[in-house]
């Protein structure tokens, strides 16, 4: 076989291999996405057309002879043949020009394309598909979806392990950390974690029924440790909780509807509300994630609940 063809095949195979590698390395590959398919088709066409055309002309260098009638002029001894333009080139040039005129004056305006319209259509289509496929998922599948949402939206601050990346954000493996409990007691809280409840007062409004006085620093430390430990251990803390906090959050810390949120464990309503409204806390301000739909919020909640249960 002619060395030229061999090189052509090697180059084509190498470039197509590189393209295959690029596509294969990405999750889902072409993913049924028309943009991916067109890009890969373009890349493949580029390699094949260039190699084919260059081989054609190099073959002419190897086997053909220069012929034709020379023009009268010669510039610094350079002549020019009066050969006609290559037929295929001329046809394609004419073809692209006609296509261009047609597309710009008829094809494009009649199609009435707009990029915002395209965006809206694609979003509506994806939403409809999502509704159809995922409206009723629950259990493990819901947790799977939640993990996917978490990795796309939450991990940037909360970390892949949901540990809050050294205090950058809340550690979601536990319901509450001691410093958060302390912060809330000292400063109060108005995050509407249930959607409608009254704000929680700061320490100047937290009355210990046993001592008959406002909550003290020692008591705050004790109760914070007790709550952060999952409502167990630290007996002094348990006592403070029973006499100061239980009236709203309930004796077991599981909260009361319309009054105070569950501080013993995560609940779907609580997480959904945080995602909807955002949250201000000891660490800082978490923005609202309104771009998530109701199902995605529910899924994120299911995933976070599964984390805090150590599942």
């Amino acid at each position, binding site marked *: 076989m002619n060395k030229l063809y061999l090189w052509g095949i090697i180059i084509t195979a*190498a470039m197509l291999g590189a393209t295959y590698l690029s596509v294969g390395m990405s999750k889902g590959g072409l993913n049924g996405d028309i943009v991916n398919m067109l890009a890969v088709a373009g890349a493949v066409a580029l390699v094949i057309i260039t190699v084919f055309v260059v081989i054609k002309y190099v073959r002419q260098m*190897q086997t053909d002879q220069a012929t034709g009638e020379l023009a009268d002029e010669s510039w610094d*001894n350079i002549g020019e043949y*009066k050969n006609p333009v290559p037929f295929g080139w001329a046809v394609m040039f004419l073809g692209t020009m006609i296509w261009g005129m047609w597309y710009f004056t008829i094809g494009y305006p009649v199609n009435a394309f707009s990029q915002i319209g395209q965006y809206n259509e694609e979003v509506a289509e994806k939403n409809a598909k999502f509704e159809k496929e995922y409206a009723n998922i629950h259990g493990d599948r819901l947790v799977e979806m939640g993990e996917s949402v978490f990795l796309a939206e939450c991990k940037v601050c909360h970390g892949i392990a949901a540990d809050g990346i050294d205090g950058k954000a809340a550690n979601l493996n536990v319901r509450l950390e001691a410093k958060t409990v302390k912060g809330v007691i000292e400063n109060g809280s108005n995050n509407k974690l249930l959607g409608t409840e009254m704000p929680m007062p700061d320490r100047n409004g937290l009355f210990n029924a046993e001592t008959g006085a406002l909550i003290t620093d020692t008591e705050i430390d004790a109760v914070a440790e007790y709550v952060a430990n999952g409502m167990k251990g630290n007996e002094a803390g348990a006592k403070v909780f029973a006499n100061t906090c239980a009236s709203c959050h309930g004796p077991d810390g599981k909260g009361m509807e319309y009054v105070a949120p569950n501080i013993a464990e995560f609940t779907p309503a609580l997480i959904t509300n945080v995602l909807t409204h955002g949250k201000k806390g000891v660490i800082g301000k978490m923005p609202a994630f309104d771009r998530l739909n109701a199902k995605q919020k529910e899924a994120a909640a299911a995933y976070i609940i599964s984390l805090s249960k150590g599942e």
Partner: protein
Amino acid sequence: MENRPLEYDYTVAKMFMLTTIILGIVGMLIGVILAFELAFPSVNTILGSGLAEYTNFSRLRPLHTDAVIFGFTLSGIFATWYYVGQRVLKVSMAESGLLMFIGKLHFWLYIVGVAAVVVSLFAGVTTSKEYAEFEWPIDIAIVVVWVLFGMSIFGLIGIRREKSLYISVWYYIATFLGIAMLYLFNNMEVPTMLATSPAGETAIGNWWHSVSMYAGTNDALVQWWYGHNAVAFGFTVPIVAMIYYFLPKESGQAIYSYKLSLLSFWGLMFVYLWAGGHHLLYSTVPDWMQTMGSIFSVILILPSWGSAINMLLTMKGEWQQVAASPLIKFMVLGSTFYMFSTLEGPIQAIKSVNAIAHFTDWIVGHVHDGVLGWVGFMIMAALYHMAPRVFKREIYSKSLMAAQFWIQTLGVVLYFTSMWIAGITQGMMWRAHDEFGNLAYSFIDTVTVLHPYYAIRGVGGLLYLVGFLLFAYNIYKTWTSDKEVDAERLNQSPMGA
């Protein structure tokens, strides 16, 4: 008089040959440093954190692009003009004291401009417009340099003996007119000293600092009309001018088709200017302008390929020359890289493909298979052809030139294949989603995957730089050689072993 062969005067050509080589080394060296900074971020502070300001990617990047575009390439264009112009117009620079003065002034003012650009960009003084970073005083100096270039072109044409203009001269004229128009309109800028703050304070900026006269989307449009056509009239048109002279001259073959030359030239002129909108696909630019950019990009394939095909067909039946001469190899491979690049660009300019390609390394790869494989190869080939005729010495070493050719070819191949994989991978990963429709990767995931390709790109760039240093050495040894050539060779340049 008419019986005596004309002696051409290459004084100005020689000066620009020197800056082509020096600025080429500088620009490519910075490029290699940048490539390794991307692959290994610690290179950003290689001279310590105290000097990090001068070594970090953001400070060096405009120095790389401007040094290779306005240093290496422009010098190459000027050097070849002061060589080719005289010869195809059959008139010597020495015949006109005025033209010689203009030529030398052109060179020295250019040097002043280059110095001002290097100092100001290193100091971080910039208008922040890509490829148009120079502040207004430098812009004015560059306009003067450009006007001198134009005076030299039209002056030489004015006193020519050759009645009709060779195709290369047309391309040089187009270069002059195109860049003049682009440069003036994109660099319309207002010194910030003239600005008034919302609170009513005046003179809040510096006299030398300026901002674009256009705002927002309008600025983006003018910027990419400029940016894209700087590629047209800096990297395409003048380089085509070179190959139309140097390939037939070196090989002794007549151009395949006069008609193809003409149609390709006017095709390029009419189509190129409208394609810049493809840099702004899926942006705030009106849809119809984006579509126009894409359409003209696709039409542009044929006039671009026309010139390349004309060159390849000029070599019809001359394979033994391609095989024997590394100088001709540079030009033939340059044509094929030109074809590859000018098909790749339009494909990337199709909206749906651009949705993947935009902002990825695929674009960087596309630019570099054009500039390394086409612009760089062609300028070096031109200088190789000029050297024995300008210095009246045999080219120092053919085997060194051949080694350079293969080293640089490998460099270009490593560069564009690694960026091909990196770019497509990056684009696919940015779009990839899982079954629930959530994005599958974070940005850092792509960085991790791309790291080896960035390292390969750095190696590719380094090989190209090594080849360029071989080129510089070869030209230097030619210049200082004692192997004089008495009579100028009509075609094949004389080369030592």
